[in-house]
């Protein structure tokens, strides 16, 4: 007979982990298939358009890449911060701060402003530097508060998000508001837009920035003594300090880098997609980026595939909604369930299914159980 029993230790092979995650995704798809059927839509057709929307053609791939780029950048920021023991949640704030800085610089590329007429190759580094600096300082303010006074960065950064969002809301409804005025800035000049990288799609160069960032973060954490110090400081600050690692400084550096990466995501969104600063343009991306990082198990190279999958799924969800006309709430449910089930999937690894003849089961001595 089939029996489910608890393992001594959770299965830890890569196949087991991937298999459990795949099971989780299938379970989410099955649950939502019922919802589709109840709404009178054909689940198979829905899932076909879910897949083809995000990956089925170049156009969809272009959107997927655009979605993935900022997600990946925020996830990389998460990795740097969290691996250094800085459980920062303020990426929503860094994102909009970075977006605001990028917009401000891009809006200076007009006649009579300080960047009038600079070529893109000059503009871009300046803009990236400005955005990253703004985000870095924003995140590092929390890092500094923690290093200096010992407050919890988890809670502080949650509060910081509101302040950043309200600050940007103030900017777009006040000082940066475009004439004529909706709560948004003027459109940035076309010369400052990120170039498109795939013919016939909207895919912009942001994905290249994300790729580069992933490589750099991987190199930092795996190949450099600095990264080693950050990881050690994250795993055991006390031991790190005793062995001569300046933990406070590493945390501050990690928070600077994390904020800079999330701000870069904001820049990518402004220069690549929105072309202006808007109220509410983050829309939770700072948190989804954290989700991506965790699904990638805080590994910088896994971030890209996970971000692409997540991005593709939300692009696909749009086209699924167009194709089936079901309420968007079902796509919310599908996305949320998929993530929750994947997060829960390690739980499956604690158990295994064993085949056991009934006789053997009866003959087992009492107490000989696995703990």
């Amino acid at each position, binding site marked *: 007979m089939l029996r489910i029993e608890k393992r*001594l*230790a959770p299965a830890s092979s890569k196949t087991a982990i991937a298999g459990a995650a795949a099971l989780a995704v299938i379970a989410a798809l099955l649950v939502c298939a019922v919802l589709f059927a109840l709404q009178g839509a054909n689940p198979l057709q829905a899932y076909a358009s879910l897949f083809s929307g995000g990956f089925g053609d170049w156009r969809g791939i272009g959107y997927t890449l655009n979605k993935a780029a900022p997600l990946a950048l925020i996830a990389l920021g998460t990795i740097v911060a969290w691996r250094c023991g800085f459980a920062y949640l303020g990426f929503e704030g860094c994102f909009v701060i970075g977006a605001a800085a990028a917009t401000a610089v891009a809006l200076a590329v007009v006649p009579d402003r300080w960047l009038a007429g600079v070529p893109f190759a000059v503009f871009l580094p300046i803009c990236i530097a400005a955005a990253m600096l703004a985000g870095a300082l924003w995140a590092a303010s929390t890092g500094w508060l923690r290093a200096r006074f010992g407050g919890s960065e988890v809670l502080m950064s949650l509060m910081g998000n509101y302040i950043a969002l309200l600050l940007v809301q103030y900017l777009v409804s006040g000082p940066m508001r475009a004439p004529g005025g909706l709560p948004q800035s003027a459109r940035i000049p076309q010369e400052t837009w990120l170039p498109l990288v795939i013919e016939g799609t909207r895919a912009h160069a942001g994905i290249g920035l994300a790729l580069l960032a992933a490589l750099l973060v991987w190199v930092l954490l795996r*190949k*450099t*003594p*600095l990264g*080693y*110090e950050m*990881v*050690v400081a994250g*795993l*055991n600050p*006390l*031991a*790190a*300090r*005793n*062995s*001569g*690692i*300046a933990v406070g400084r590493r945390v501050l550096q990690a928070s600077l880098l994390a904020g800079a990466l999330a701000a870069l995501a904001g820049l990518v969104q402004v220069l690549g997609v929105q072309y202006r600063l808007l109220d509410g343009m983050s829309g939770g991306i700072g948190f989804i980026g954290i989700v991506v990082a965790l699904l990638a198990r805080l590994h910088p190279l896994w971030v890209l595939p996970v971000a692409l999958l997540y991005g593709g799924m939300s692009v696909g969800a749009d086209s699924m909604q167009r194709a089936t006309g079901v309420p968007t709430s079902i796509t919310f449910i599908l996305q949320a369930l998929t993530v929750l089930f994947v997060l829960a999937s390690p739980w499956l690894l604690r158990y295994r299914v064993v085949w056991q003849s009934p006789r053997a089961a009866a003959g087992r*001595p009492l*107490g*000989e*159980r*696995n*703990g």
Partner: protein
Amino acid sequence: MAAPWLHMRGIVKRFPGVLANDDAHLAVRRGEIHALLGENGAGKSTLMQILYGLYQADAGEITLDGQPLTVGSPADAMAHGIGMVHQEFMLVRLFTVAENVALADRQSRTLDLAAVAARITEVSQQYGLQIDPQARIEQLPIGVQQRVEIVKLLCRDARILILDEPTAVLTAGEKDRLFAVLRRLASDGCAIIIVTHKLHEILEIAERVTVMRAGKTVGCVPTAGSSEAALARLMVGRDVTFTAPRPVQTPGPVVLQVEDLSTTDERGQQALRQAGFCLRAGEILGIAGVDGNGQSELAEALVGARPSSGSVRLHGREMRGLDTASRRALGMAYIPADRRRAGAVMELSVRENALLGMQNLLSHLAGLWRDEARISAHAQRLVETFGVRTASLSFPAGKLSGGNLQKLILGRELMLKPQLLVVEQPTRGLDVGAIEVVWQALLAERQKGTAIVLVSAELDEILTLSDRVAVLYGGRIAGLFDNDGSAALRESIGLCMAGVGASASQADAAANQAALPEQECHAAH
């Protein structure tokens, strides 16, 4: 011979990849103090945690008074009168003593802290333990915290008390007091199981001792008529030497000069007051004292892990304002007391732990890029030189036994070829075999001319290894002695630690010595 009261038979416990208990036995009688002995990793703690319901055995049975007993949880254990004092105290630091005692009290459904406090007072008076029920745990010294643990059990009428390495953090005086309480309890009919690595303590307190090796029980012998050597042989399977000869050698030039060093503890209390001493190459200075008298703070202040005022000079160079990294670069090394929490990174491999502190040396491009080949070679050499028993270099350090982990940390620091080594409690919790290895390593380092500051709560250890001994009391250096190995010395150190023996002249001498300029340092020898 009376039938055992508590009997554990054929206990098997598997952890992933480890057979922690393999057919282990334990038989304890009513009113008996029973010791459990074994090398690090022999499975003592595991066996006790099974008895206390924290782990479930894979096989085997437990009987109490001949009745089979199932302990599914600590609550079960307590219901049967089994209580445990863990190596790491299980106290909520922000709670008061009364709240901590009430926490584990399953008897009443309501919370009546006043009644609990009254009971604490009653029990502690009965056994001569002095405890203020309203004190917050974080304000209490270690020795008192342990008393709280015991009172916790007594308030719940525990009849079988398990103590896992209870003396590892206690001073001689505290230990004596603990033993008095244990004897008292035993005479009242309790059974006490005590896990310890200190053979003389076993001979002193226990009636019988069960010895474990690699998860198995290898024997149960009465202590009467036994000796330390015999126990050690039983446990390790070979003869063990208990003394390490400290060869006579003339110390070299002054390495470390400390003047007026003061610092505070976590709570902002003055923990170290104007300490001063100097130390020469090839010399070991033992820092003795009752735990919590500023020893840790002194060590941390020396290596820059704790902000301090005053002067620390290494080879005449002022260290003030330098952080740990810079001080290490200038030749300091540090082995903290709590190896698991402060000395190594449990999640990382042996190889990555061997790298700790050397990450910038074992690199290309002046610290920009890791040099993997040299890192591996370094780790390999460390493991070989210091005999760290590990499955591979990629084995997680957290899964090493205490002794092996200590060897790893010791080796790591010594391979930095430090001029000054600050080491705290180097053998705490280690078995006699491992202690031997560590002592030899420290003496070899002394021979190479390294100056060593040795902080230890073990007076024996200090007297075995040190050339000179400083006693800390209340954050002050209350006495500074040359170690002549005499019995009188041991006595005066003991008195000094208790804060009574520090005669005015000695204290003055210490204070003077603190201010000694370099030449007088020479003259002192």
